[in-house]
């Protein structure tokens, strides 16, 4: 009996015994070579970009230098300069950092709101769900790009946070819809009913009982959203409605290519930024897709 007990205790010490969704997802990523490489590369880019941007002097980079306009790549300027004589490489680093930051921020804001919205609609169901879904339908049919641009152009105190909130305000519907349909299924399960009979409040049941059970879906969706949001941000910056020009984004560099001269003859200004956006979005997507396959498979198994 005693032997048995120590045995049990040992098992309890072993953390891998717990069915944590995070750990399972992590295992799946390690198994999927493409996703693993993507994740490593992504981490490297992130660390590199944030590290260098920390050392770089942003004012130095965005200062106009009329003696070095449109320099092709050279030893002094690794990737040349733009029409204001500003170093492209430095802008690329800072732009990547800014794009990543805003991607994370928008994903977080829209994610938190969308998850809460979806959980509440799905958990309560009935009239609540119906009313909330009509609101969601309305937001979903709005012309997203245009409304964001209009808002961006009329907001007086325009900051990174304001920009993120505007983007998130028109971008939470996808995840909300997904979470809602999952919550609708989940709330029928007995453990939710049990919590009700045990006197647990609705808020606690929603966020402490149901939410942990759909955490893998949340992680997968948030990852895929991150890729999309990086793309959307750079698109808006490309049109000139992301950051102001003094805060470079990857989209800002691409927007120089709307000048036919730049597009045709000065590839060093826009091609690296284009490649970087593509690579980052693909990598994030690889990770997200691997996670999605993992959760799908788990659902199929039981």
């Amino acid at each position: 009996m005693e032997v048995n007990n120590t045995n049990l205790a040992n098992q309890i010490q072993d953390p891998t015994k717990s069915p944590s969704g995070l750990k399972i997802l992590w295992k799946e990523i390690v198994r999927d070579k493409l996703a693993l490489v993507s994740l490593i590369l992504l981490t490297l880019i992130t660390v590199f970009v944030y590290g260098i941007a920390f050392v770089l002097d942003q004012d130095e980079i965005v200062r106009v230098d009329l003696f070095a306009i449109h320099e092709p790549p050279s030893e002094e300027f690794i990737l040349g300069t733009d029409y204001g004589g500003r170093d492209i490489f430095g802008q690329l680093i800072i732009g990547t950092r800014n794009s990543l930051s805003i991607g994370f921020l928008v994903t977080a804001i829209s994610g938190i709101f969308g998850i809460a919205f979806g959980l509440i609609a799905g958990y309560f169901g009935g009239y609540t769900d119906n009313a909330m879904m009509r609101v969601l339908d309305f937001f979903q049919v709005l012309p997203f790009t245009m409304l964001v641009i209009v808002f961006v152009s009329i907001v007086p105190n325009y900051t990174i946070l304001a920009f993120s909130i505007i983007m998130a305000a028109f971008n939470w519907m996808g995840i909300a819809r997904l979470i809602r349909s999952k919550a609708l299924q989940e709330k029928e399960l007995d453990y939710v009913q049990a919590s009700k009979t045990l006197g647990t409040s609705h808020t606690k049941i929603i966020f402490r009982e149901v939410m942990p059970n759909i955490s893998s879906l949340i992680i997968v969706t948030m990852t895929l959203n991150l890729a999309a949001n990086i793309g959307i941000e750079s698109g808006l910056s490309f049109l000139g409605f992301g950051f102001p020009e003094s805060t470079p984004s990857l989209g800002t560099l691409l927007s120089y290519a709307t000048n036919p001269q730049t597009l045709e003859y000065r590839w060093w200004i826009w091609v690296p930024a284009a490649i970087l956006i593509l690579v980052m979005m693909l990598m994030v997507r690889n990770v997200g897709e691997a996670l999605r396959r993992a959760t799908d498979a788990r659902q199929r198994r039981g």
Partner: protein
Amino acid sequence: MAILKVNDLKVYFPIKAGIFNRTVDHVKAVDGVSFSIEQGKTYGLVGESGSGKTTTGRAVIGLESIYSGKVMFNGKDITNFGRKNSALRKDVQMIFQDPYSSLNPRKRILDIIAEPLRNFENLSMQEEKKRVQSLLEIVGLSPESILKYPHEFSGGQRQRIGIARAIAVRPKLIIADEPVSALDVSVQAQVLNFMQDIQKELNLTYLFISHDLGIVKHMCDDIAIMYKGRYVEQGTTADIFNNPQHIYTKRLVSAIPDINPRNREKQYHFRQEVQREYANSYNDYFDSEGLAYGLQPISDTHLVALPERG
């Protein structure tokens, strides 16, 4: 005094249709059910699936909203009491049918069993842990299990965890919704006997919902048979098994398998006879919609759904 008294309980689910989704009709899941349970007794609710027995149980504890009727607990009205009166809620707990879905897979056993304690009692971490460990001991599981997750247990063990959770705040009434039907037959008796043990120990009252007459006979003091949302027959266990009056009850009782092979022939003929009677006298026992009539007393304890003799 009766601990639970249910009076003319009706649970209707709306059928919606039309452009504005108006309610056009109702599904009468429970249609006028009345009963009362004495402290310390076990009251069995029997019926086929869809008969409304589970809905009755869920309505009593507040998981379904009640269309009309009254539920009295210890003399207090708890009809649709929802989440308002936590003192009453604490006294009524539930054991669920499926031990696999009734325990949150993402929570440790400690957190699962402590959930009602956290809602109703202010315990320190240490006290709470002790309580959970002693509860685990009561249900026959190792107190070291508190840090494990539900998937590390067998179905029978999980149901014991569910029971430990239900008795954690020392309730007076437990609604057991088919507590063993998802378990292997070998484990069923174990869990049932254990339920009887803690009933004596804690002076519990059970509302025992089941489709299995054999189990009900073993567990219950009083039994009600439900069919299509209505009572067909109600009485003591002896009334129902020795003197079934309604044709539907007779059919159910005759269908209980007998393990003695020498009675096989006898059983067979008995079943044939009941089946014939069922076919012949169906219209005497059910109204034009195929529903049971109102209950008529035939003794102090025994009620049967028969048309009023005029």
